[in-house]
């Protein structure tokens, strides 16, 4: 599903900063993985590269057997749209769009008609138990509800992989548990799931923990 071969990334802001120092990683389809590391370990950079949000200098990244390298902005937009679903710490819903419109947005960029994409979006909202909240604006919803809308949005385009960046970082512990349960269920339906976190409570719920430290992969533990 995902194959990283010797990925290197250096930031050149003033003094060069070698963030990723040769990452080799294979994630199979349907896996439920967490990437753990302290801040500055390079886990966010790794997530950006996995999410085709950022470029890398050396190495090869295959996503679903497609080499993701030196893409134009337009190409990477298309790959992000079709292959990757994002779940963010701060939800990142568009504040002036209601829940339904937020969920439907990725489909808008696939040029699917309004009627059809609202139908699909409603289906996903229903799956996440938010059918009655479809017409509500993000500021009328609780943190947990917002994150569920975001998950629905990540799923709506049927991506290959879900990338979640601290998905419970802005939630209280009770809601965190609920959200993790949802992600678990989504994974149970066969979706590959990668969660970046520094919270052991979260990583404990995943099946495989990849520790990253100083830009290299440390030990990989299985939670089975």
């Amino acid at each position, binding site marked *: 599903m995902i194959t990283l071969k010797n990925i290197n990334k250096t930031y050149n802001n003033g003094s060069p900063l070698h963030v990723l120092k040769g990452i080799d990683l294979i994630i199979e389809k349907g896996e439920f993985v967490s990437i753990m590391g302290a801040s500055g370990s390079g886990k966010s950079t790794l997530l*950006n590269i996995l*999410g085709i*949000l*950022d470029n890398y200098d050396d190495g090869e990244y295959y996503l679903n057997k497609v080499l993701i390298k030196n893409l134009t*902005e*337009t190409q990477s*937009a*298309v790959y*992000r*749209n*079709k292959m990757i679903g*994002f779940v*963010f*710490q*701060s939800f*990142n*819903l*568009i*504040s*002036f*769009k209601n829940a339904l*419109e937020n969920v439907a*947005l*990725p489909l*808008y*960029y*696939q*040029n699917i*008609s*309004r009627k059809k994409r609202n139908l699909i979006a409603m289906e996903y909202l229903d799956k996440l138990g938010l059918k009655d909240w479809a017409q509500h604006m993000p500021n009328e919803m609780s943190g947990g509800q917002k994150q569920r809308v975001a998950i629905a*949005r990540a799923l709506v*385009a049927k991506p290959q992989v879900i990338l979640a*960046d601290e998905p419970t970082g802005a939630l209280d512990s009770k809601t965190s548990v609920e959200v993790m349960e949802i992600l678990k269920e989504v994974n149970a339906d066969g979706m590959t799931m990668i969660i970046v976190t520094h919270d052991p409570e979260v990583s404990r719920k995943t099946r495989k923990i990849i520790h990253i430290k100083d830009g290299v992969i440390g030990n990989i533990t299985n939670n089975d």
Partner: protein
Amino acid sequence: MFDLDRWQEIWITITRNKMRSFLTAFGVFWGIFMLVVMAGAGYGMQNSIISGFDGFAVNSAFFFTNRTSEAYKGFRKGRSWDFQNEDLSILKSQVKELQYISPMLLGGRRDNNTVRQDKYGSFHIKGLHYNYTKIDPLDILKGRFINEIDLEERRKVCVIGKKVYEDMFDVDENPIGQLIKVNGIYYSIIGVVEPVVTNVNIGGNNREAIILPYTVMQQTYNRGDVIDCIAITAYSNIPISDVEEKVKSILKQKHSIAPNDNQAVDDFNAEKMFKMISNVFTGVNVLIWIVGLGTLISGVVGVSNIMMVTVRERTKEIGIRRALGAKPLSILVQIMNESLLLTSLAGFFGLAAGVGLLSLVDMALGEQEKGQGFFLHPQIPFSMAVTAAVILLASGIIAGIIPSLRALQVKAIDAIREE
């Protein structure tokens, strides 16, 4: 390439941010509103003034005498001289381009020079030829104008202006055939006139004038064969300026005035005057466009500026859109279209409000008396509205360029960067 879905997306973005959109749009609204109102006011002024000249023979000139400025043929300089009756026939026979010629005698407006029964008033006294109406047309309200026989037989008749009739007669009284005493001599009234042209008055406004046959005026005022002013028109295909010089040189030769004397013959050339007036209005229009476009440009800069702020404020939203798969082009198109839609909507409201205001003013002015108001039909021509619309669309695009380029620089990664 009309994409309903895209426009719905744009419309939602605009309407969900009402205050922001309103502020953005207001600058353009105001710019186009001011342009339309100012241009309308300019046209109103122009209409009002031009209607005051309407009907006046453009191809005409008026000549007056003045003191000579050169000594010539034994005459000293500074000599006073007058036109005489025979000048008319000389000009007529020597200048073939002349279409009409009318002498004019001016009697001035002395205090209470006119009496009828218990009424009296002060009016301009003029002696004219019947051809005068070919140069400065008069509406005959009652009776008739001076004719050939009046001039020939020196009948003591007069034509009075509308104001004279109103002042010297009761309402609905028939003035024709009535006697009126002007400077001690009785004249029989043959007609009542109103000037067609209100903005050119030679020897006083004809509404307030008593017009005598010039031959009668020469006799009763003891003026001999002296004429104060000669009015001419040339055939329409001949520029009056050419004829003007010819007439001047004939008059100078006849009256022993140096050919290089530029002061002795005063003249008033209607063509030159109209040209000057039309130049003034060209100037006014240019000024209106400069000021109006300036206002509009500042509106466009305002839109651009607010769109810039908006783009900055929307960095996160744009980043999210990019992360969800929006291509750079679709972001560019989105921002451009928002700008275009806002400016054109605001502009067309401004255009409508401006035209609406002008129509209201036009209605409020109503059917004012000719030449009385400052404005007449303050409206903009359709062609100008079309021009304004084109300018609007162009300015919408221009206003959108810089903000949308800025929006292009927003990367998806900005959306997930936590502040």
